[in-house]
């Protein structure tokens, strides 16, 4: 049994999913506007730095965007963790 259907072309995916992607860009834009209008400052907040770096990934022209955004938002793995915890 084949794994996938006939692959959709890039043009087909864009036509089918443009409005969904557009709405998500607008949601993000409105979120940033909301922050700007609000009292206080989040400029140096860690979350804002992560969002900014995440947006850079979206525009960098490289593949694996979802995976790289996930790793950006993740704590690092230390292969020596068992030794650090005293577990054998």
């Amino acid at each position, binding site marked *: 049994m084949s794994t*996938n259907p006939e692959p959709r072309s890039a043009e087909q995916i864009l036509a*089918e999913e443009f409005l969904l992607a557009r709405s998500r860009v607008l949601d993000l834009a409105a979120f940033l506007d909301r922050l700007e209008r609000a009292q206080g400052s989040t400029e140096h907040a860690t979350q804002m730095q992560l969002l900014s770096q995440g947006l850079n990934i979206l525009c960098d022209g490289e593949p694996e965007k979802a995976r790289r955004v996930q790793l950006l938002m993740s*704590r690092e*793995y230390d292969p020596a963790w068992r030794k650090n915890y005293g*577990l054998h």
Partner: protein
Amino acid sequence: MDYIDPHIHMVSRTTDDYETLARMGCVAMSEPAFWAGFDRGSVDSFRDYFRQLTQFEPKRAAQFGIKHYTWLCINAKEAENVSLSREVIAMIPEFLTAPNVLGIGEIGLNKNTKNESTIFLEHVELAVKYQQQILIHTPHLEDKYQGTRMILDMLMHDTRVDRSRVLVDHVEEHTIEAVLENGFWAGMTLYPVTKCTPQRAADMIERYGPERLMANSAGDWGPSKPTAIPDLIMELKRRGHTREQIHRVVYENPRRFFAQSSNFRTHDLP
């Protein structure tokens, strides 16, 4: 389309939800033991919870023609209490012969602490001793990558663990590859905000193929949608996947995985 939800917490859902799931095509489900929203105070609280999972919920599901299976453990969040965890682990064998118990789960990590890791290893020891399958919870959000790697490290360090009898749940784009390439089963959890959308799950199915991959709703008392699997079915249909391709992920794969437990009754399914 008939489907199986391999991870859903029906103790926190209404009887109306059972009826809706049956109407949507759900023919069987498995319910891992999890956190109740508060830390329980004694081993008897867990004993009563396990009675609910092994006696009450199967009857509630049966009213709508749904087969209900379950997994037993003390969850990672409460595993910080090591002494209580050990009392619960010692009590679990009382329930392993109940006819709807598939194994030990959902065990795993929450904040990736030493205590959680200690209790995880003791659950694995229990599963090995009683030849039980294992269902794994991987942590949320920023803790997921680190915790998943720690869990895989612990499982692969133990040569007694049969990886084909372990389901690692809540995989996402940054964890799915390590789970599948090391021979474990992987589950994608469809949640409205955290975890995975039907669209991203469909992407992972297209990218990694259907082998040892399944999807679940993990419906519980938090923001979640018990009918999320039909949403994934719709997304896959929209993309042109055939009925057979979809059926493999939402029915055949969980059936094959569950069938490794002696308590799973394949002949009861449609």
